[in-house]
């Protein structure tokens, strides 16, 4: 009954009640709107902080270029350019006090592993080669025409049945068999004079001769070693240290132990087994791999390797989904990886192809013994977003990724290729937003940077973060303004509906109301008005948040879209800057991250307002109650 009377008295001053209803509703709306926007922009910032990574790539640039021009009867002048590098730059030189790396620089080699049980997910480009013994039907005379030779023994060929046999000119390269007579180009490819009737061995490959306009066979690189030491110097202990075209005469004891025939047999074995070679990449985190950083490679099944696994060197690995599918491998399966040798600075496109110019024979002409063998558990599979595109360039076909620390042995004696660090093999991670300060510190602390090209890629973090921080500041202003408005409205509300009701309380006290009844009489009306306006304000604020949020999504740089059909509908996307991005091209790069509407705020804010109003109004009513009613009620008389 008291509550009813209280409300009745409130409604008897409709203009005042309506005014406060509107003011309270508007300020609650502002408060809710600001709070929700603040919460959402804070979530977006947190999402961006975890979503964005700032990665630097390092490439040692050549100090000069050497151009060689070789006259070639068949193909005219052959011009070759090769880069000359200064002293090999080690990633350790990039460590300096205050570097504050999240992930320090790493130089990732490709490890070559031999997995005869596994199949490659797709065939790679194939440079046809055949190892044969042959007998010239005439002496080579140094003339520019080919000489005919007859095949006496075929040791190896890599011509695939599925491979197209005709070249661009309609010439067919056949799988050479004993008795076949073929033209051997002597213009540029026969390193030693050949005598008719003698038997020779070489690797031959069919090449179209521009001079004679026919298919002739070239002598290809013979058995050799490409072993390097830890800083890239050639290891030369007498075995063929360079890639040279070789023709060896086959004598009676040619294949006996210690003679050159053994080199050829190993070479044939190497060539024959190359289809079972796979590449393995050690890393301290896949975030450092350009393809993963640029989101050109993504996890498909299972999980990523954890930070703990990277740190502890757990025997876990990631494999490509196509490799897993081809070999019926699943997450949880284990594969044994004998690591034969390491290729530094090598091209991902050549690492497993027949164009490969590294040798699995060490400087002593022996196969590399695995420097590390362990059984690795597959914890996840990845895929390239565009399988044909090859990612950013470092993801070799069927590449297996392992934690660097999982390799417990030195690769020092098993380096089969060494090129200086490049942008695909060397990278590091620094905190977001630190590019300029890091770069300045780097240039102040590290010498020899002139031979390095360092690129930073934050995937647009700077621009996105500026945009998000602006949004959050705006939300903070709105929230603060809402808070001030609410405070002012509450103050006015309590002044007019509580403080100025001293006399009413005094009358009620004089009539015999208990103190509790006096409190209920005053506070219930105020709370009812505040409750209705807080609810209406919250509902309107929530609606406004949805409307404005939706509008912002379509117009601002921080927007709401979805990128891929297999991912949950996203709520944040961002246009990325290209200032520090290698990968952001002409189009906006869109990223997804969840932003939840803070539903709790829709309850918390009105509840807090009501609580504040309740507490303050009770305090004020208590003050009113403490005033002697007679003093108030008889004041006019006195």
């Amino acid at each position, binding site marked *: 009954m008291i509550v009813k009377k209280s409300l009745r008295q409130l409604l008897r001053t409709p203009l005042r009640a309506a005014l406060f209803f509107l003011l309270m509703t508007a300020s609650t709306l502002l408060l809710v709107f600001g709070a929700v926007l603040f919460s959402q922009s804070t979530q977006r910032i947190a999402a961006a902080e975890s979503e964005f990574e700032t990665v630097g790539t390092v490439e040692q640039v050549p100090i000069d270029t050497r151009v060689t021009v070789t006259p070639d009867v068949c193909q005219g002048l052959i011009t070759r350019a090769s880069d000359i590098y200064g002293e090999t730059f080690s990633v350790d030189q990039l460590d300096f006090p205050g570097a504050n790396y999240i992930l320090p620089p790493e130089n990732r080699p490709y490890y070559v592993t031999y997995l005869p049980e596994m199949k490659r997910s797709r065939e790679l480009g194939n440079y046809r080669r055949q190892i044969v013994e042959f007998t010239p039907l005439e002496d080579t005379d140094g003339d520019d025409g080919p000489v005919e030779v007859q095949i006496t023994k075929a040791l190896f060929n890599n011509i695939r049945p599925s491979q197209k046999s005709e070249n661009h000119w309609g010439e067919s390269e056949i799988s050479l068999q004993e008795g076949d007579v073929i033209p051997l180009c002597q213009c540029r490819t026969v390193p030693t004079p050949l005598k008719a009737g003698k038997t020779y061995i070489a690797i031959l490959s069919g090449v179209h001769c521009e001079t004679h306009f026919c298919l002739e066979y070239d002598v290809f690189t013979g058995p050799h070693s490409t072993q390097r030491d830890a800083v890239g110097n050639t290891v030369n202990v007498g075995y063929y240290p360079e890639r040279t075209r070789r023709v060896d005469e086959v004598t009676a004891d040619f294949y006996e132990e210690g003679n050159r025939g053994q080199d050829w047999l190993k070479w044939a074995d190497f060539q024959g087994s190359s289809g079972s070679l796979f590449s393995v990449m050690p890393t301290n985190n896949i975030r450092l791999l350009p393809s993963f950083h640029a989101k050109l490679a993504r996890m498909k099944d299972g999980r990523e390797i954890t930070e703990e696994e990277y740190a502890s060197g757990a025997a876990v690995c990631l494999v490509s989904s196509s490799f897993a599918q081809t070999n019926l491998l699943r997450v949880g399966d284990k594969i044994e990886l004998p690591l034969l040798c390491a290729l530094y600075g090598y091209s991902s496109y050549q690492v497993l192809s027949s164009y490969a110019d590294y040798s699995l024979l060490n400087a002593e002409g022996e196969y590399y013994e695995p420097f590390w063998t362990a059984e690795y558990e597959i914890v996840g599979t990845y895929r390239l977003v565009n399988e044909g595109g090859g990612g950013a360039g470092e993801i070799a076909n069927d590449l297996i990724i392992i934690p660097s620390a999982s390799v417990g042995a030195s690769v020092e004696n098993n380096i089969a290729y060494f090129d200086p660090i490049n942008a695909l093999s060397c990278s590091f991670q620094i905190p977001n937003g630190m590019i300029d300060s890091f770069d300045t510190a780097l240039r102040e602390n590290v010498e020899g940077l002139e031979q390095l090209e360092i690129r930073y890629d934050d995937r647009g973090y700077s621009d996105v973060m500026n945009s998000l921080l602006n949004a959050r500041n705006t939300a903070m202003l709105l929230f603060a303004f809402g808070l001030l408005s609410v405070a002012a409205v509450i103050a006015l509300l309590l002044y007019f509906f509580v403080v100025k009701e001293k006399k009413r309380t005094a*009358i009620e006290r004089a*009539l*015999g109301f208990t103190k509790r009844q006096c409190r209920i009489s005053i506070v219930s009306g105020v709370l009812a008005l505040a409750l209705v306006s807080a609810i209406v304000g919250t509902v309107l604020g929530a609606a406004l948040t949805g409307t404005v949020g939706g509008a912002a999504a379509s117009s601002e740089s921080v927007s709401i879209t979805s990128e891929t059909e297999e991912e949950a509908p996203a709520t944040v996307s961002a246009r990325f800057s290209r200032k520090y991005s290698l990968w952001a091209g002409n189009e906006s790069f869109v990223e997804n991250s969840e932003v939840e509407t803070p539903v709790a705020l829709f309850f918390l804010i009105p509840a807090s307002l009501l609580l504040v109003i309740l507490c303050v109004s009770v305090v004020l009513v208590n003050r009113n109650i403490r005033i002697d009613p*007679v003093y108030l009620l*008889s004041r006019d*008389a006195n």
Partner: protein
Amino acid sequence: MSQISAQNVSFVYQSKYQQVQALTDVTCDFEEGKFYAIVGQSGSGKTTLLSMLAGLGAPTQGEVLVDGVPVTAADSEKHRRDNVSVIYQSFNLFPALNLLENVMYPMFLHGVPEKEAKPRAKELLDAVGLSEVDVRKLPSMLSGGQQQRVAIARALASEARVLLADEPTGNLDSENGQLIIDLLHRLVREKQYCVIVVTHDLNIAAGADIVYRMRDGRLTREASA
């Protein structure tokens, strides 16, 4: 029969700078069916005594008794609800409630349902001479005399037998003032109420059955007019 009395009531309060002895050893009795006037200069302690009798303040010493039973701080609210009603110079009606609602207000405290309270309130308004006035009007729409009549009707609604009136005619012209005094006298005569009027008006005091004079917090009884 003594209905309400003050026994050796003293009251001291602390003002900003000093202790003030508002009442000193006040003893008095008020009976049903009599009209009392308490006169005295401003600041003499009249209103303070009224406050003590109404249970709105607790004496520093002494006690207020109703039918011989002391009024304690714990039951002062019940005392105000059941035993006394106060009428003020400035009427002190609820400005946001209409006449009927103002009169019905004390009835709710006694748990009288609205269905019963409404005709009773109308009766009371008729009794104080407001039968011609629209009961849905707000107090501000009435004259001062009419508002004071509503205040008296509200005082009667509580069914208390003691009416304490603090300068009830102070804001009224003499004609309306006299009408209110007449009304109070009628209540004494016809309904046997005990009416205690605090006033400066010697004419009102002259019509009282018993006159008390307050001077410097001390009360003395004067001879009846």
